[in-house]
């Protein structure tokens, strides 16, 4: 039955791929052409081999070939207060949990690098500057990014720059796919990313130093200490990085495509992160988090421009205090957080000097209650107050938001069935937000095999720029609203503690957004935002992981694939029915990681499909594949752990564009060394 399902799934993708978009979808289409059809394709043999590599990994990533492995029935843990998992009950929602083992490989990287290599989400990277991510055919503004529950998105732009967020800002990262306004509020129509820290409350004093030097003048240094016992824990991190980013790129705008060295792309940044936890005897926990970050970067010219003198300086501060009290069948959580961001942008050639800042305070009170083993309630209120200033607003602008929410979960005793109903309503001064309901369910069908589904409403409030920017800002905008739904199958034995563990999710999704805010020309040279766009997204996603562990041998294989259609649904628009720009039809990842007696080797390959760059589809950016390699060794001397490693990014020195005409680096090397003292 399982095998039949997988065959069906691949068949579905390839048929869709071939039928709907022919050449735009070389990846899924060519698996079947290569493997099952004798039909000749235009692809070179090398391309075919690459495709086999992917296919192999999908097969490996799926547990079906190892059907003989004894399945264990995975039983959900017995009723317990969920300790305020942020957003309430996430039943029937696909969540990618980035393994701590994988996370440690990216300790010195930014979140954009991690997501690009380890998830099926599309990362739109402007090279050395901004990187944003979009899920399921939505835009970067529809992706919520949270650090210990603090929303990181700018209220001015509605975006978060992933290239500024160090992976080590948290202890684990969850990628939540699909609409989540009922759980997290405005702006989560595509999905959300949660960077969280977690106390261990074990007696330890750990000190770690890691450094890496790499191509193009890159240097990263980090210092990490964890101290604590059963009562308290303190974790301090310092991360510093700088880079010349003077890589060589192919200039497509000059005769003969000469190689040029990127200039004016230097960056440097320092982060200080402090977490403190205290657990009192009567089940009370106090958590304090603080994160300061400051840095600068020069913004290089795109290939289509000849030079740039633009630069930006950014400073940000986030801090939160949270108190939790757990009783036998209930719990209270109080949290307050503050975030500040200051951005200074200057461009001496145009004389543009933009000095902007925002402050956001975020407070939360939540209450959890378990009626019995089956019914649990999560309810709460959030207060968000943001104020922002930039010269173009004319004055300091403020926006307050009150959010009320409740969710209830029902599950049967064996844990084989769970369902959740949730409701949220946000209140704002300037506009009316819709009620956002959510329903989700999960069911175990056979051993570790189950299915899940969810549906909900989403909304996104206009940003300060949309409302107040002069000229053009439109204070009469209303929030975007839409729905999202998903249904899928999963196989998961990762909690069975067997030598072989595997996890697989295959799902189909549908989402739509009405009143999508888009800036349109409004006479003369003035652009103004309007609730004009309407978008429908749908597609298929697959993620598979297989791990094998025996003594000091560990093998980890994973693969992901996403097929996304995201159409403009506004019938009055010239581009009605067309795929949105920068939404690749296909996205895929495959990686292998081997560990043996302290040696470590990993390979990772990612595929990004062709993307339209103009809404009328007159311009398209070609698909590209990137291969990265990493090798390392660790040594243990008493209480010391020494790690050394070499990373080779873009091993094939592929010349590609993530965003049109933005130079991207070719092959680069990084050598890292770290020492940990326990």
């Amino acid at each position, binding site marked *: 039955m399982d095998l039949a399902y997988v065959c069906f799934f691949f068949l579905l993708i390839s048929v869709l791929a071939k039928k709907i978009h022919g050449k735009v979808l070389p990846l899924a289409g060519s698996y079947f052409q290569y493997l099952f059809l004798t039909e000749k394709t235009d692809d070179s043999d090398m391309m075919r081999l690459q495709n086999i*590599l992917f296919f192999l990994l999908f097969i490996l990533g799926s547990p079906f070939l190892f059907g003989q492995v004894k399945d264990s029935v995975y039983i959900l843990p017995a009723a317990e207060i969920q300790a305020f998992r942020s957003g309430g009950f996430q039943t029937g929602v696909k969540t990618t949990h980035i393994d701590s083992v994988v996370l440690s490989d990216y300790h010195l990287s930014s979140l954009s690098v991690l997501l690009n290599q380890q998830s099926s989400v599309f990362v739109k990277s402007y090279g050395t500057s901004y990187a944003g991510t979009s899920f399921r055919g939505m835009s970067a503004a529809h992706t919520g990014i949270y650090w210990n529950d603090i929303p990181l998105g700018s209220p001015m732009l509605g975006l978060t720059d992933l290239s500024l967020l160090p992976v080590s800002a948290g202890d684990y990262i969850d990628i939540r796919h699909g609409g989540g306004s009922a759980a997290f509020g405005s702006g989560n129509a595509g999905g959300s990313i949660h960077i969280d820290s977690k106390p261990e409350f074990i007696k330890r004093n750990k000190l770690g130093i890691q450094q890496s030097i790499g191509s193009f003048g890159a240097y990263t240094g980090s210092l990490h200490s964890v101290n604590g016992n059963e009562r308290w824990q303190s974790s301090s991190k310092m991360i510093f990085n700088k880079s010349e980013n003077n890589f060589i790129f192919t200039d497509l705008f000059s005769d003969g*495509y000469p190689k040029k060295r990127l200039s004016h792309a230097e960056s440097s940044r320092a982060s200080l992160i402090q977490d403190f936890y205290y657990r009192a005897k009567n089940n009370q926990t106090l958590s304090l988090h603080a994160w300061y970050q400051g840095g600068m970067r020069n913004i290089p010219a795109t290939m289509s*421009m000849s030079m740039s003198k633009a630069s930006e300086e950014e400073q940000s501060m986030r801090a939160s205090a949270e108190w939790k009290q757990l009783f036998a069948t209930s719990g209270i959580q109080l949290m307050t957080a503050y975030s500040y961001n200051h951005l200074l942008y200057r461009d001496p050639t145009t004389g543009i000097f933009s000095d902007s800042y925002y402050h956001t305070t975020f407070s939360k009170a939540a209450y959890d209650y378990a009626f019995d083993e089956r019914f649990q309630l999560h309810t709460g209120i959030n207060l968000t107050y943001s104020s922002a200033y930039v010269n173009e607003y004319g004055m300091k602008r403020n926006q307050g938001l009150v959010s009320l929410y409740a969710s209830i979960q029902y599950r049967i005793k064996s844990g084989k069935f769970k369902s959740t109903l949730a409701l949220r309503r946000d209140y704002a001064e300037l506009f009316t937000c819709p009620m956002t309901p959510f329903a989700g369910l999960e069911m175990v069908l056979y051993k570790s095999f189950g299915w899940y589904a969810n549906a909900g409403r989403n909304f996104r409030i206009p940003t300060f720029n949309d409302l107040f920017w002069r000229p053009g800002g439109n204070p009469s905008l209303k929030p975007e609203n839409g729905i999202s739904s998903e249904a899928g199958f999963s196989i998961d034995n990762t909690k069975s503690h067997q030598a072989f563990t595997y996890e697989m999710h295959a799902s189909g999704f549908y989402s739509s957004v009405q009143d999508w805010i888009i800036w349109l020309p409004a006479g003369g040279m003035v652009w103004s935002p309007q609730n004009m766009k309407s978008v429908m997204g749908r597609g298929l996603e697959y993620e598979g992981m297989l791990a094998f562990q025996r003594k000091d041998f560990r093998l980890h294989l994973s693969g992901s694939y996403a097929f996304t259609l995201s159409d403009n649904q506004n019938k009055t628009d010239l581009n009605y029915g067309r795929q949105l720009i920068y939404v690749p039809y296909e996205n895929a990842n495959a990686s292998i990681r081997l560990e043996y007696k302290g040696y470590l080797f990993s390979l990772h390959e990612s595929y990004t499909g062709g993307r339209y760059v103009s809404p*009328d589809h007159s311009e398209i950016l070609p698909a590209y594949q990137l291969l990265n390699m990493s090798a390392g060794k660790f040594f243990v001397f008493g209480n010391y752990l020494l790690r050394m490693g070499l990373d080779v990014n873009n091993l094939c020195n592929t010349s590609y564009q993530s965003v049109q005409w933005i130079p991207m680096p070719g092959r680069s090397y990084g050598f890292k060394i770290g020492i940990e003292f326990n």
Partner: protein
Amino acid sequence: MKKTAVKSFVYVFLLSVLFGACKKVEDPQKNSSIISSSTFAQGVFITNEGPFGSGTGTVSFYDRKLNTVRADIFQEVNNRPLGNVVQSMEIIGDKAYIVVNNANKIEVVNASTFKSVGSIANLEYPRYILSDGKGKAYISQWSSPGRIAVVQLDNLKILKTIVVADGPERMLLFGDKLYVVNTGGFGSENKVSVINTLTDELEQNITTGDSPNSLVLDANHKIWILCGGKKVYAGAPSYELDTAASTAGSLLMLDAISGQIEKSLSFSSKVLFPSNLCLNKEKNQLFFNGGDGVYAMKISDAVLPQQSIVNKVFYSLAYDTVSTYLYGSDPLDYQGKGEVYRYNSYGMEIDHFQAGIIPGNFTFR
């Protein structure tokens, strides 16, 4: 058993990576279409600005006889894109000079084949180029402050730069005098600069209405200068156009010989923002576009026209003295390919065709 299965998979994986991982980058396809020395000998070149942000502009070519449009001819011939914001193009002798604003360069091509023959680099936001007919050319630049670069055409070397006022735009040559309208660039300005082309020195700045944007020389040696007027936006909470602080556009007539403003006509509407002043073949009728359509006016008329001849708003407007048609560009949504409409002098539509993204200026040959 299991272990060997895993091992063999790993080996196959590694082998396939080694064999298949890096594919050779294929050489970009050479275009096989035939371009002869007469391909672009006669016709209309449309400079398309290209998408906002970092996109590239293009040049489309319209063949009047064949009634065909060739898109992106620079890329087609030279196998590379032009650069960010293609502002304008000027044909001087047998060469065409394509002004690429944000790329700070002018691409020089053979005007008949469009084959690249050189470029003028290190400019600062160039807008237009105009020849003095004696081997030199003047390039208006939105640098801060605005400057006119003087370039030697045979070696494309910049001889000097002349500071004018903010946002120098279109230029006009009369005798030894170069007239430059200064629109204000990113701000506001109200001056026409006069440069002596013998000494390449600024002679004077003539004060005009706000935002002069285009100028033409009529049959009577009068220079007509169209001023768009100043746009001021109100503060909170409306941010709409502040009509009290904004100024209306105006049309000035300057005697090219004496340098005196002889006529000044003010528009009554503050939301018209007239632009793209152009002239018919006989140089006795003016055309321009406003916020609500295309207007026509005889040079002998004492008042400004009240009624538009075409009720369509164009981004750019020009008059082709070969076909004696008006060309208007419509960028549609400013993101996809735009369109070009053709009208006769009475405002009757002849036809329309597709151009590139944000069609901005026309060069007739």
